[in-house]
């Protein structure tokens, strides 16, 4: 006689209210691609009607900025740190392959 081992699928899902990952929430998305095929649904929650493209994102061209592993800061092609180029919390990062992404002051928040 065998006993089936039942593994509820919910066991793999985070707690809906208190996710243990929040104890050390590593792995928050910072640079992620925009899904081009996501379209607004007809009956979306009230608050989403106020979602807008930020009017003044500061674009950083990652093809002209690199991380200096020795100094441990971002530098431009001449090796000069790029302080102050995108620090106000709504950066639009233009990567070399054309994908765009953004960070927010409230991402935790941005914040």
């Amino acid at each position: 006689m065998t006993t089936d081992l039942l593994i509820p699928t919910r066991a793999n899902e985070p707690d809906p209210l208190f996710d243990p990952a929040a104890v050390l929430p590593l792995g928050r998305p910072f640079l992620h691609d925009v899904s081009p095929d996501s379209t607004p649904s007809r009956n979306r929650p009230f608050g989403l009607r106020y979602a807008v493209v930020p009017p003044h994102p500061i674009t950083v061209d990652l093809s002209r900025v690199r991380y200096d592993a020795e100094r441990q800061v971002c530098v431009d092609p001449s090796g000069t740190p790029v302080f102050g180029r995108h620090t106000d919390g709504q950066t639009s990062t233009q990567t070399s392959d054309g994908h765009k992404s953004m960070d927010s002051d409230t991402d935790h928040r941005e914040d």
Partner: protein
Amino acid sequence: MGGARTVLVLTDPYDTTADYVVEELNQRGHPVFRCNPGNFPARLSLAARLGGGWTGSLRLPERSVALDDIGCAYYRRPSAFELPDHLNDEERRWARREASRGLGGVLATLPRWLNHPADMAHAEYKPVQLALAEAVGLSVPPTLITNDPDEARSFVVEVGSAVYKPLAGGTIAEEGVHKLTYANRIAAADIDDSVRGTAHLFQAWAPKAYEVRLTVVDHQCFAVRIDGDSEAAHLDWRTDYPNLRYAVTDVPEPVRLAVFRLLDRLRLRFGALDFVVGPDGSWMFLEINPNGQWAWLQDATGLPIAAAIADALMKDEA
């Protein structure tokens, strides 16, 4: 050992706000190990052995740090884990959870943080911070959180002038672009059944002369007055950075002491708080960002915020 203990900076490589602090530490000759936990396991590796606590190291191809040589950890903006392309979605999810509990679990045992991520995660809950702000004596606008449109309508009528604000914020990606949700003034007539769709935060509109972003580092205050020169900036300064003016300002003593109580209750050493200052000079608390941005204010005003953070990270004890 006996030398200065290494500051661990956990963030994305293109987080230029962290650059200010790293460069400040570099100039002081203080050891720094900057890594992005998102580079685990591809570039970042961990070996930790239990025995009188966790000992071992974090390693990048170009440098490493012993776990017991880490003095304070600075948690900024780590990115998502990079997992091998050959994994399917389920394998990826499993590996991500293991990485989070393994790397995250070992890092969670580090004794000193600015701020500890668990404390930041707790403080991110707006209902928590608003209730604590009220409890420590700060003025907070009347606030309603609901998914009931009738309650929302009644609240807006009751307070006369109200705003809708997101509880979590962040971006939504759709139609090929990222969008953000800011504070928006609303009327009772705007509210409909879509409020049932999720939790919504409504708040009374606080009469505003100007706003203040108050950055606090270990009870050191850096207050910047923000004046918006456009209608959008006056409503929510985040929507119109080009039309803002900045000036260093003072914090009234009762507000300063209440802010310290709030940070202590939230177990935060760093916080970026937003206030509305009314035409009568009263300060109204809007929110606290436990990991908020600050470098653009240092650029605009010269306030030495990066130096204060570096000081805090170099302290021998929290």
